[in-house]
Structures are given as structure tokens and as C-alpha cells.
């Protein structure tokens, strides 16, 4: 069914989603060497190589070699200026795993990622359903809800930090006027909440546009059949539309997880800088802080390795748990 494939594909276009996509797509892949090959194809190895060369060369120079260098630092301690380097085996890993702060970061990252992913998709579904249902103003709603997509994470982070600043932020003042205590500088939970809200806000438009597109592609005749079968709109949505867009939802779940793991970097940097007391220090932010800002390259490389493993595990787990329930056929 073309739609699911297409929607499953496009997210890849975004920034990091690749991981997700890649794996999402791997479903369609290999087993036999013919996988993903058109029935009508050419056999011109020379030309194929030439077509692949630009991508592979760019990847070699700007991905493989740098990644190899980055990961290989995981087993050394190194002077950032490059003068000295000591091989330490797994010491960097041992130190990380023994550190309560690191474990806290792992723990926060996991639940942050999950909650962010679920809330984003749930809200996006609600909006998409409503958009699908209303007739008047549909285009306008769509344009407006898509707007955050245009905003650089740097800016949206700053906006959120400002709006919810307990001293001056209008929204913080609104919350406080309701008698609810609010201080993301001192209350870890508030900070975590803020980071989640900001990341959801930034990412919801992405899920939304995919879902709107997917819902549009649900065959009209099925909805009509359901109508004659006595299903009212809400029930129709849950029993027909929703199951039919599961490939998109699944794809988005994977994407959201990847977003949570990697992409929220900019927001955290602007909103909480990982604080207070490391409460919002996600793994990728820590890699960045320790490696790039603090220049603790060895530890940071070890964290990258662990992060990569977690990313892969997370995705695989999702596939195990969710993918078999997905309908790829319409």
C-alpha cells in the first residue's frame, strides 16, 4: 500500500529521524538480496556504482571516518589539545556506569522520551481527528498548527524559557496566580515538565501533518461502509481510521523516540541547560556538554557508544512490541 510506505519514508527527511526511518524501512529489507529491488531493473554495475559514489564518498568523509574517530576515543583518556592520549580500556565505561548521576540521566532520558513521544502523538491525533472532521477552516487550522515547525529550536527554547520564567514569564505568572507553585529553577519536576511541554510543542506539528495526510488517504469507501454499518464519527475514527493509519503511527512513534533521544538537545540547552541538579540532563545533552563544552572527550565518547546502543535497543524493542500489530495493507 503506497501510502504507508510513503509516510513511513518522509520523516526521514527531517533531521535525525533517520535512525527511525532506517529501521522502519529495514522491515521491507533484506532476507534475500532482491529485497527493495524493482522487478523492472537494470544491470549496469558500473553506472550503479557511479550513482552511489557521491553519497558513499560524502558519508565516508563526513560520517564514517569522524564516527570511527569519535567512538574510538571511548577507550582512551585524552588531552583535548591532542598532545597526550592514554589507553584505559573500559575504564571510561566503568566510571560512567558506576556514577549515580549518569544513571539518573539514563533514567530521565528514558521516561522523558517515552512520555514526550506518547503525549505528542496523542495530541497530534486529537488535532488530526478534529481537522479531518471539520470542513470549515481546515486549511487555516492546518497552516497555523504547522507554524512551530518553522521556528528554529534555538528560538523556541528561548521563548519557552522566557514565558515560564518564574520571575517575569507571563505564563509562569498565570500559573502562579492560580495558586500553583511554579519554579523550574528549583523544582526538578517543574523543569522536567517544562522541557516536556516545550518538546511536545515543537514536535507536535510534525506528527500532525503526517497524520492529517494519512487520514486523508484512508479510502473514502471504507468510511462510507462503516457509516452504513452504523458507526458514528468517533467510533469510526477508532475502529476504522485509526487501525488503518497504524503504519504512520508506528513510524511516528519511532520518530518521536528518536526526536526525544537526540533532537531535544536545542530545547534543553535553551530552557534548562540540563538543570536543576541534572534533573533534565538527557544523554545526548550530556554527551555534548561533557564532550564539546567540557572537553572530556574520553567519557563523552563512551557515552556516545552507550547512547547508540540505547537508540538501537529502543527502536528494536518498539519493533518487537508494536510492529506486528501494524496493518500495512489497505
Amino acid at each position, binding site marked *: 500500500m503506497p501510502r504507508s510506505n510513503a509516510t513511513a519514508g518522509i520523516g526521514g527527511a527531517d533531521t535525525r529521524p533517520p535512525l527511525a526511518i532506517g529501521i522502519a524501512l529495514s522491515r521491507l529489507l533484506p532476507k534475500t538480496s532482491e529485497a527493495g529491488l524493482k522487478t523492472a531493473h537494470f544491470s549496469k554495475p558500473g553506472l550503479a556504482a557511479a550513482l552511489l559514489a557521491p553519497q558513499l564518498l560524502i558519508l565516508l568523509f563526513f560520517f564514517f571516518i569522524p564516527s570511527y574517530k569519535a567512538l574510538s576515543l571511548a577507550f582512551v583518556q585524552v588531552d583535548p589539545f591532542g598532545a597526550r592520549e592514554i589507553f584505559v580500556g573500559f575504564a571510561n565505561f566503568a566510571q560512567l556506569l558506576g556514577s549515580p548521576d549518569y544513571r539518573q540521566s539514563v533514567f530521565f532520558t528514558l521516561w522523558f522520551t517515552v512520555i514526550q513521544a506518547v503525549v505528542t502523538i496523542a495530541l497530534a491525533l486529537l488535532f488530526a481527528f478534529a481537522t479531518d472532521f471539520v470542513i470549515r477552516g481546515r486549511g487555516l487550522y492546518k497552516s497555523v498548527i504547522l507554524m512551530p515547525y518553522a521556528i528554529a529550536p534555538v528560538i523556541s527554547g528561548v521563548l519557552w524559557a522566557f514565558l515560564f520564567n518564574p520571575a517575569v514569564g507571563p505564563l509562569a505568572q498565570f500559573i502562579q496566580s492560580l495558586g500553583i507553585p511554579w519554579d523550574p529553577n528549583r523544582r526538578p519536576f517543574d523543569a522536567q515538565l517544562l522541557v516536556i511541554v516545550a518538546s511536545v510543542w515543537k514536535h507536535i506539528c510534525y506528527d500532525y501533518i503526517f497524520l492529517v495526510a494519512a487520514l486523508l488517504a484512508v479510502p473514502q469507501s*471504507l468510511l462510507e*461502509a462503516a457509516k452504513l454499518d452504523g458507526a458514528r464519527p468517533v467510533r469510526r475514527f477508532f475502529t476504522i481510521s485509526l487501525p*488503518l493509519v497504524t503504519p504512520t503511527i508506528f513510524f511516528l512513534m519511532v520518530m518521536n523516540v528518536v526526536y526525544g533521544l537526540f533532537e531535544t538537545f536545542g530545547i534543553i540547552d535553551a530552557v534548562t541547560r540540563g538543570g536543576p541538579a541534572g534533573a533534565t540532563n538527557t544523554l545526548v545533552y550530556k554527551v555534548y556538554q561533557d564532550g564539546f563544552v567540557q572537553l572530556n572527550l574520553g567519557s563523552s565518547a563512551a557515552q556516545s557508544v552507550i547512547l547508540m546502543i540505547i537508540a538501537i535497543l529502543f527502536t528494536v524493542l518498539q519493533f518487537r512490541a508494536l510492529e506486528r500489530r501494524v496493518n500495512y495493507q489497505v
Partner: protein
Amino acid sequence: MAAIELVDLKKNYGTVPAVKGIDLSVSDGEMIVLVGPSGCGKSTLLRMIAGLESVTSGHLRIAGKDVGSVEPADRDIAMVFQNYALYPHMSVRQNLEYGLKNRGFPRQDIARRVAEAAAILEIEPYLERRPRQLSGGQRQRVAMGRAIVRNPAAFLFDEPLSNLDAKLRVQMRVEIRKLQKRLGTTSIYVTHDQLEAMTLADRLVVMNGGRIEQIGTPIEVYERPQTLFVAGFIGSPPMNLIDVGQADNVDWGELPPQTGVVGVRPNAVRTTPTKGAIRFTGVVELIEPIGGESHVHLMLDRGQALIASVPGKAGIAEGDRVNWHVDRADLHCFDKSTGRRTD
């Protein structure tokens, strides 16, 4: 089971009329077939009855109740779609159950009805399969099953067989007819397959350009088409329509030449003359032997084409110049300008 009544039913899309005023009474248990060329408004009409399309003006009554603004779910109508519209994520059983569950039928009742429908349609072995695991014919049956399981007031069919191959089409056609007779459910059936229209209908409704051209039993419509349009549309190969004024080398016998159009069914064209018969002379352009009979394509001298359907192999060859004869009784006469039957 219920009667359906349409009174001056109209539908515009924007300012473009799709259905231009239809009056039709379908009696309880009757099987009506709608035929007509593509775009004549058959589907639109059907969808208005189902409630999937709003009515622009006119009245629509089911079992005596005006349902113009009743939701589809509440019209107690089942529809079989051209592409079946089976829910791909549900098993066959779930597909059948869905409409019952939505209407809050008790569990046992649901199970019994599904079992019954499955038995009638012989789809028990596939109940646990997903639609994509079924062949076209099997899917068609499931779509039928979904319609009958609810025991609705009426069935609506929108070209339900057009996605099947010829062989299967014949078979399913017969089954649908038997089933409809057995259940006695009021049905409206849209098709543009001649054979389906002729064999299924209690009454045939021929539509054209958003209006009804003729209503009648298939035989009536076949034997006495009321308009030129119906004459040309019903029957395969289609009726030969000859412009009297344009056809020189025809020996009309006693018939006074008049400005009109004369229709002749291909199987009324004979090689042997009978008394008082009309004679056409023309060249054989093409002979299509199709087993039991052959279609002979003739070209009359003034460029009018004529098709004759003759039993067995025609004893003639392409290129021959031959005479053909038609009984005067087999002629259909139409007024050229109004298109209406004159005899």
C-alpha cells in the same frame, strides 16, 4: 424489507446537476437494475438513497418514511461497493460482525447471524482470514455477507461484480440473483454490464444524463425500447440504427420512406428473404466467429454500418457483397428529432 420511493429527486454538485429529477417506486422485495452510460448519475442516485450524498431537492421515502435527512446509519440499508470496501484490518468474521456490534446486537444474536450468513455464502472456511488473503470472488462474497448479515430493509449494489473476471462474474451474478430471490430483500443494483442488467432485473431502469429514459422489465426494454438512446444502449451487439433518409441501397418494400430512424437488432438480420421483408445490400467488412454464432460487420453503400449476428459460421467471406433481409415486424421506428419511438 421495504418499498423505496423517489419523488423528483435532484442532486447538484455546486451548480452542476448530476441527477435531474428522478421519479421511481421500488416495491417491496423487487430487484431494480440501474443502467446507463458512465457519468449518467447512477452512483449518485444510489448514494443519495444510502444517505452518503445529501439530497438537493425532492423526496426520498423508505418504507413510507421520508429519510431525506436521516443519517445513513439509521436508514437500515446495506450497500455493496464496487471495490468491496472490506475493512482490511479485520478478519472476515469481524467484518461481518462490525455493523451488528455498532447497533448493539446481543453477542449470541451476532454469532448466530454471522454463522447463518457465512453458511449461505459458503465462506465459513475463511472466517478467520483477512480480506487480502482472499481471492476476488471470495471477497465479493464477504462484501455480500456484510450486507445480508444485518437483514436490512434494502440492498444497494454499485457495480459489485465489475472487478471480477468474466467467468467469475457470470457465477456470482447467478448467486446474487438466487440470494436476492431467497431473501426477498428490496434491491437496487447499478451496473453497466448488459448481461447483468438483463438477467438480474425485475425491472430495468435506463438512465441517461441524470434522467430516466425508460423503466420496464428487461424483455420489455429489449423488445420495445422507447427511445433511440435505449435502443442503442440495450442489447449486444447493439441494435443497428439506420437513418432512413441516408440509406439509399435499401429496399424498404412497402414501408414509405420517411424522415426517421429505423432500428434492427443484429439477430433479426437474416440471409434468407421472407415475405415482405426489407432488403439491405452491403459489403462484408469483418466476420467475427464467436463459437455458436458469428458477428458479421457490413458496410452499406452510403457508409452506414450494420452488424448481423448469425448462428454458426456464416457461409460468406469478408469482402463479399451480399443481401440481408429483415422482417418488417422486427423493425423499431423512431422519430429522428425527438428520439422517441413512433410505432
